[in-house]
């Protein structure tokens, strides 16, 4: 051993007394730069738990963990960051649709517990919570495009002279561009009553695979072209992109795909076990819930017959929705698919008397989806005068092809989608139209877009207008008398209108169209069965299988749910599809942890 090596340990010890080369400052003395990407912070309230941060993280450093109960538009999950993996790139912050995620400029943290370096910002308290400095998304910068690809509409002036569709539809290029805005968070799936696989079909559209998109769509919706045109789109109301921008045009993308194919049977690749061979199901009412039950049972081998009182299937989507919103060829295409699936369709057949009892004997189960066909009455004096009509009758007559006249001046009473449809149809029939609504415009149950379209077409809306009576004028027209309302608070939510006494307004019209709502009519059922399934208001209560109080009778649609939209009716149908199979012992009983509306696939 050389002398140098022998003395080396002593030389090293001498360095202990030399000036250190390391920075002598105490930890924390030097603050992080104002835009430093330090420990994460998250505004728990603004965060919607969409998981886009976790999705984009290239190091898989973020897990979404349950923190709160899920609510509409909030998964209840929050990001938990693993700092053993995080590289502080801040992609998670830059992509965050709600803008809740940020990074503090704190970077020093000493802890002997390694697990401490996995925490849920905004939930696990940290000293840097609320830090104002650190990395934030730049003002005006976003990885995600916040602007929706605009949809073309016919000009309002042109619209009122035609029954052509108002919405033009996306081109292929527009659809791909719009689909590319999706962050695939899946909040929409939970919001959709039928739990459609939205991110999957939107990803397929983005990738240019429209066949795959259509197949994904038909997993759990057999009337998607209808939904692509008139859906109430609860999905869009919770879209994470919509928090700080335009929500993804989910409805228009579904419309794009479903319009691409005329022969659905040749495109759909259905692969489900035919577990229902030899079983018979009767469906009463050919609306969205009945069609759903019929299609998804028929492809499983059940022998299904739909009994419909009107000359065409479709329910309210046939007789209620005007053709400029949902044209007949679109409906016919969907009915053709039903026939191709082997469903027997009996139209112009109103089930009456003891027929339901016979159906129960001859079938393994019966599904009722007869909807709400009986309009509520106005209740005011003069309601029985000629010229006072009900919106449901007017829309049905128009859609069936009967001659409909409304004269030059019309008042529509009501504020729901039926009222708006009646008003817009009347405009197309050449009338000047006013809607008289008891509450404020903000309270109108009609779709906002429908209200805007109606106003663009020249429909006048008078809010807080209470109908008092209808009188016959000397020249044979109608005097619609209404009084103004003040809004008074209510302990049940929305304020209630209250008539201001002593003021009367007169409107001379040719038609008063009543569109205040509708109820169910169960007079077609044997009374003992009706007593078991329906309540005084006409509602039918069903269990988790969609079965009513009468064994073997299932129900869905507007009779059952209070949302009165087609997608909820489809969801009811899906529940009954599984429920009927459980009832017949084909599927095992539902586990408590399973969702009531099943998430199904047919591929």
């Amino acid at each position: 051993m050389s002398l140098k090596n022998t003395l080396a340990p002593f030389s090293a010890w001498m360095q202990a007394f030399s000036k250190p080369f390391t920075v002598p400052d105490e930890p924390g003395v030097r603050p992080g730069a104002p835009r430093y990407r330090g420990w994460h912070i998250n505004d728990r309230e603004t965060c919607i738990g969409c998981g886009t941060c976790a999705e984009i993280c290239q190091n898989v450093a973020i897990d979404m963990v349950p923190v709160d109960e899920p609510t509409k538009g909030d998964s209840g999950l929050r990001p938990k960051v693993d700092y053993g993996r995080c590289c502080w790139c801040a992609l998670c912050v830059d992509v965050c649709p709600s803008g809740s995620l940020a990074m503090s400029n704190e970077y020093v943290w000493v802890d002997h517990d390694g697990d401490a370096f996995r925490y849920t910002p905004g939930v696990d308290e940290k000293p840097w919570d609320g830090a104002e400095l650190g990395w934030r998304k730049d003002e005006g910068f976003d990885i995600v495009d916040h602007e929706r690809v605009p949809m073309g509409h016919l000009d309002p002036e042109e619209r009122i002279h035609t029954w052509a569709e108002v919405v033009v539809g996306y081109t292929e290029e527009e659809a791909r561009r719009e689909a590319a805005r999706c962050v695939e968070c899946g909040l929409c799936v939970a919001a959709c009553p039928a739990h459609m696989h939205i991110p999957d079909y939107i990803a397929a559209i983005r990738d240019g695979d429209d066949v795959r998109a259509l197949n994904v769509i038909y997993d759990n919706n057999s009337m998607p072209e209808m939904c692509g045109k008139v859906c109430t789109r609860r999905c869009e109301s919770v879209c994470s992109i919509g928090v700080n921008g335009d929500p993804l045009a989910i409805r228009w993308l579904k419309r794009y795909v479903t319009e691409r194919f005329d022969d659905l049977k040749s495109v759909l690749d259905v692969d489900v076990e035919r577990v229902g061979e030899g079983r018979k199901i009767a469906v009463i009412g050919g609306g969205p819930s009945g069609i759903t039950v019929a299609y998804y049972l028929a492809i499983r081998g059940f022998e299904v017959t739909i009994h419909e009182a009107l000359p065409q299937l479709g329910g309210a989507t046939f007789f209620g929705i005007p053709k400029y919103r949902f044209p007949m060829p679109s409906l016919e295409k969907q009915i053709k698919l039903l026939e191709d699936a082997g469903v027997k369709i009996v139209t112009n057949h109103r089930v009456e008397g003891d027929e339901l009892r016979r159906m129960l004997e001859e079938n393994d189960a019966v599904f009722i989806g007869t909807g709400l066909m009986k309009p509520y009455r106005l209740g005011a004096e003069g309601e029985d005068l000629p010229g006072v009509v009900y919106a449901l009758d007017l829309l049905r007559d128009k859609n069936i092809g009967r001659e409909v006249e409304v004269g030059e001046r019309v008042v529509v009473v009501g504020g729901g989608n039926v009222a708006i449809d009646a008003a817009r149809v009347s405009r197309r029939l050449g009338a000047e139209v006013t809607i008289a609504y008891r509450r404020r415009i903000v309270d109108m149950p009609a779709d906002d877009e429908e209200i805007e379209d109606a106003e663009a077409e020249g429909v006048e809306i008078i809010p807080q207008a209470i109908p008092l009576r209808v009188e016959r004028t000397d020249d044979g027209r109608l005097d619609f008398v209404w009084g103004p309302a003040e809004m008074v608070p209510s302990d049940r939510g929305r304020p209630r209108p209250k008539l201001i006494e002593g003021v009367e307004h007169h409107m001379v019209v040719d038609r008063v169209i009543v569109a205040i709502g509708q109820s169910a009519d169960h007079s077609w059922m044997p009374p003992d069965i009706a007593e078991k399934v329906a309540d005084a208001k006409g509602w039918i209560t069903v269990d988790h299988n969609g079965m009513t109080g009468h064994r073997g009778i299932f129900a869905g649609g507007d009779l059952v749910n209070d949302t009165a939209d087609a997608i909820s009716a489809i969801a009811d149908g899906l529940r009954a599809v599984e429920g009927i199979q459980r009832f017949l012992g084909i599927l095992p009983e539902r586990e408590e942890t399973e969702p009531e509306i099943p998430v199904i696939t047919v591929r």
Partner: protein
Amino acid sequence: MQFDSIEEILDFAIGKEMEAHDMYMDIAGKVKRPGLEKTFLELAQMELGHKARLEQVKAGDLSGFAAGEVQNLKISDHLVDVKPHPNMDYQEALLFAMKAEQRAHDLYVDLARATSDPGLRELFKGLAKEELKHKLFFETEYDDVILEGN
């Protein structure tokens, strides 16, 4: 209508509640719509509750009366009355009940106006307020169910 004592008035009001109870029971036995029989039986039961409250008042417990102002939504005021019939539906049932309570309210208001005795007037006003409260119950239901879209 002539009343000589508070007791007589309360007996009259109690009789009116019993009349209403009997009327609802009678309709309950006649209606055909599923579930509506139960609705009318519940209405009849409510009238018994009103009767019990008036008996409380008669026994000297004025807390049985509705306190404070009672909201009047005036929904039934401009709606046409209906006659009960076997095929009546929920809308008609509510209309009928609202109108019945309206009539009872108006009766007590008229009696309050007609009397010169301040004590009796206050009692009639109290009874009118009670009926207004019953009417509000049905009007609220009508507003929530029938007029939900209007």
